């Protein structure tokens, strides 16, 4: 078989495509240019320190270092895979050899950005299941063929299942698996449209225009022309409205396009063990996560989205994340609340959503106000005394904190449903956090002197994620906190007895 051939030629390691070097170089040059722009902002553009002889020689040294290190990194990088392990060799000046047992591999993420795709190249990110962040394996710029080979090797082991179109046929041979893979959700054009219209991308668009303008203005004197353009639109009401309409249209187009490219083709499939997420139009990303690694769910809803009942569902998990794939823990980017409620138990059967939640006592407002006294009283007063010019900032801060605390004491709620804990925070923008008893890493119940007088307690839940996720719920009734505590204690007891009985049987 192919695998055996690979094993025999152990010395022949898989490598990244040579184009990788070019991309890395472009990336580092891009970073360098931004760094220069940043420097010129800090030191003022008039100072030509970068362009002095000293500066130029530094730049040349830097470029040489970059080229050499990229060359070495490419030269030293290699990988091979057989039935037992994945072998990686990497390093710039010091090379590192590492063997990852395939049994430990937890997941796989395929990320294909636009340009590499033109050359038929893709990037695989393999979650080796260790807790060290540096241990995630990144196979950059390998051919689709190689990527598929690795994926099939892993899927043969039952570690990873393939969801890509070209590999569907392979799976079909395996009739057992095809029945278990189920498609749950595919994003609709309408959802993208609504989400992009209601998000704050409009503001982003304006800041984008402004930042482009100020960047360009650094190099060319376009002040006068821009002034002329603004003058043109301001000269009559008709032109002004036209101008504003054009601007709004452009920003809508920008928003829709951006959202479409980011979340277009977003779909969620799953089999009994894993969830697969695909997304992106230009830069595609494939992501899979084992179901039992999902520690908690968080369901968030922003200000405008709340009126439209649109929520964003995020998974909190202990599996690997990489800077490039930040958004991949989003299960549903924007979905109608009811649909989410229907789909979540379907996708992750281990999670249930409780409708009936109890609100925290209103007396909590006293504790909440005292807890944030520095935010709504001390800080604004200080600001007002020392910088009277910022009186508006002080007022905004004062009213915002006060209102948010008031609303949070009126609308925060909690629930305990079988082995699930559910917490809802905030009123204008809400955050719902759901986790199950055996996923909680530890539980803390605290009580301050004032809380004691009012019969309240705070609970803190620590979930396993990178970094550890701490969810605090302030001011639940004390009885409830005690119930949570004993509920958790009993859960641990049950867990251990079940394990013990399993071992004896």
């Amino acid at each position, binding site marked *: 078989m192919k695998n055996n051939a690979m094993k025999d030629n152990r010395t022949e390691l898989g490598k990244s495509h040579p184009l990788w070097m070019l991309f890395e170089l472009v990336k580092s040059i891009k970073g360098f240019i931004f760094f220069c722009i940043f420097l010129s902002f800090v030191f003022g553009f008039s100072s030509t320190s970068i362009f002095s002889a000293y500066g130029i020689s530094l730049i040349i040294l830097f470029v040489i270092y970059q080229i050499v290190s990229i060359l070495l990194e490419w030269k030293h990088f290699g990988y091979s895979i057989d039935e037992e392990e994945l072998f990686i060799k990497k390093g710039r000046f010091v090379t590192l050899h590492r063997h990852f047992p395939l049994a430990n591999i937890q997941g796989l993420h395929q990320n294909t950005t636009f340009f590499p795709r033109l050359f038929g190249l893709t990037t695989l990110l393999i979650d080796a299941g260790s807790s060290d962040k540096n241990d995630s394996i990144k196979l950059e710029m390998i051919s689709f063929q190689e990527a598929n080979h690795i994926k099939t090797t892993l899927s043969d082991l039952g570690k990873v299942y393939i969801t890509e179109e070209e590999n569907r046929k392979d799976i079909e041979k395996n009739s057992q698996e095809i029945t278990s893979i189920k498609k749950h959700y595919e994003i609709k054009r309408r959802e993208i449209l609504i989400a992009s219209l209601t998000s704050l991308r409009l503001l982003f668009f304006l800041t984008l225009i402004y930042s482009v303008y100020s960047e360009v203005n650094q190099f060319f004197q376009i002040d006068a022309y821009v002034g002329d353009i603004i003058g043109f639109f301001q000269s009559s009401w008709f032109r002004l409205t036209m101008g504003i309409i054009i601007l709004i249209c452009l920003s809508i187009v920008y928003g829709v396009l951006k959202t479409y490219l980011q979340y277009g083709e977003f779909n969620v499939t799953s089999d009994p063990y894993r969830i697969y997420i695909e997304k992106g139009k230009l830069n595609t990303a494939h992501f899979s996560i084992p179901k039992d690694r999902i520690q908690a769910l968080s369901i968030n809803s922003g200000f405008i989205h709340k009126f439209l009942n649109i929520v964003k569902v995020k998974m909190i998990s202990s599996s690997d994340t990489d800077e490039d794939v930040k958004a991949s823990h989003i299960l549903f980017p924007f979905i109608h609340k009811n649909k989410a409620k229907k789909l979540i138990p379907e996708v992750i059967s281990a999670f249930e959503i409780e409708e009936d939640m109890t609100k925290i006592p209103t007396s909590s407002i006293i504790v909440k106000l005292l807890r944030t006294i520095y935010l709504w009283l001390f800080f604004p007063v200080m600001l007002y005394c020392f910088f009277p010019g910022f009186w508006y900032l002080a007022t905004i801060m004062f009213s915002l904190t006060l209102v948010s605390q008031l609303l949070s004491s009126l609308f925060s709620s909690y629930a305990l449903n079988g082995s699930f804990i559910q917490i809802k925070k905030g009123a204008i923008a809400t955050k719902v956090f759901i986790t199950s008893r055996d996923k909680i890493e530890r*539980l803390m119940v*605290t009580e301050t002197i004032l809380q004691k007088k009012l019969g309240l307690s705070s609970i803190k839940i620590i979930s396993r994620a990178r*970094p550890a996720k701490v969810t605090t719920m302030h001011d639940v009734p004390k009885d409830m906190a005690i119930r949570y505590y004993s509920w958790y204690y009993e859960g641990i007891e049950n867990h*251990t007895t079940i*394990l013990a009985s399993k071992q004896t049987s």
Partner: protein
Amino acid sequence: MYKIKEPTQRISPDAIKVWRITDAFTSFIFLVVVAFFLYLHHYYDWPHWIEIALYAVAAIVCLSAMIELIVIPVYKQKTWRYEIDSNCIQLKHGGAIRKTHMIIPMNKVYFVDTYQGPILKKYHLSTIKIGTVGYVHEIPSVPENTASEIRNDIAYLSGINKRKTSKEEGNEK
């Protein structure tokens, strides 16, 4: 009102002395630093307000040292409780002002250490460090022998639980 059951075990009464010594030491270092700045102030003729600020800092350090030396160690020692059973570790600290109860399941413990500095050693005490996701929890000032017993217990219990869990996972796959 119904209450969370207090963990039963207490920490050593000598903890008060240990905390007093270490706090006295840190306060002393703070004062030395302040004194050094005062000296610099006289030497370089710094503006007058710096002197005022330095004296204010010194006063605060003295005041907090008084509280920290006399009241806090006693309060901390009296309120610290812990309990370890075969399933979990329960910790409780703080009393009237701010009380914290914590519960750590055995199978979520990643490592356990005992630690002993020179002052702890003098009183034959150890601190137990329990490593969990994102944080290391401590049980301060436990008698040496008890500490190493507890450490071995936790290591054994958490290790067993982990092995069981991995076995279970292995069977499922």
